């Protein structure tokens, strides 16, 4: 990438008030190292331990969701472009915002949208009830997660989860999720 392009990219990132950004293939070690960087950064800010852990945990859930989804497509013999994931952490006024984006197969979009729309309509008590209900369900044999991640993020968020889906081609949509803490 040429110097001017890099400069423009960096300027775009800082205009969005992004503190940390990763785009590329997510591996567990990338998730872990980036998580350490997030925590180290937050520890230098004047915020409490609980707030640090909320940002960290929303980051971990999003990054692991992207990674697990990519891995499950690969395991099913339908690998998606490995470098299609992105996670960013930024600050908007007093709030931290953790966002992620990745390609999802067109078939997965209706279910994903429906579960997010449902969570968006729930208040604190409703989210807690949904969390308890999901946590008591027996785990599906093939699942890599417990189905709790989105609910947990919604509970830690200071406003309803924001998401968008846009078609990329006949096979994929780009799914993005924004969580303000």
């Amino acid at each position, binding site marked *: 990438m040429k110097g001017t392009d890099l400069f423009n990219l960096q300027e775009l990132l800082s205009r969005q008030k992004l503190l940390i950004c990763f785009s590329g293939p997510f591996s567990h070690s990338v998730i872990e190292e980036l998580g350490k960087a997030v925590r180290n950064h937050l520890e230098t800010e004047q915020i409490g331990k609980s707030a640090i852990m*909320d940002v960290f945990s929303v980051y971990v859930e999003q990054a692991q969701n992207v990674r697990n989804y990519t891995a499950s497509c690969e395991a099913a013999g339908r690998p998606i472009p490995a470098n299609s994931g992105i996670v960013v952490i930024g600050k908007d006024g007093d709030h931290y915002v953790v966002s992620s984006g990745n390609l999802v197969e067109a078939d997965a979009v209706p279910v994903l949208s429906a579960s997010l729309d449902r969570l968006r309509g729930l208040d604190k008590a409703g989210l807690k009830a949904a969390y308890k209900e999901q946590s008591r369900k027996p785990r599906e044999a093939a699942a890599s997660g417990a189905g709790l991640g989105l609910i947990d993020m919604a509970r830690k968020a200071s406003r309803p989860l924001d998401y968008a889906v846009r078609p990329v081609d006949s096979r994929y949509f780009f799914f993005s999720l924004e969580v303000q803490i």
Partner: protein
Amino acid sequence: MDSLRIEATSCSPLIDFDAEAGTLRIEGESYPENSFDFYAPVFSWLEDFLKEPAPAVVLDIGLSYLNTSSIKCLIDVLEMLDTANAQGRPASVRWHYDRDNDRALDMAEEFKEDVTLPFDILAR
């Protein structure tokens, strides 16, 4: 029966289960690459251990952070102990949390809501 010990890493907790003393310890942070794979030996050890009639079981938990798939695994661990306790095998939990971390306290209280076995939440 053999004891079970799995050393902590930066993203997985120490597991230290002493079969003879009945003391079980889980300590650290838990967000491994695959929580279900990580906790599988914990489940199978516990299953065997709880088949034996003695001793009483005390689970000491010092987890400051768990991702959601680890939370699910821990719920399953607590359910195993809760069932054993209800069936006459005394089992209890002591959850230790850092005083300055409210989230760890909230989390402990949520785990406690779902079980009936003795469950102490202790600040440290």
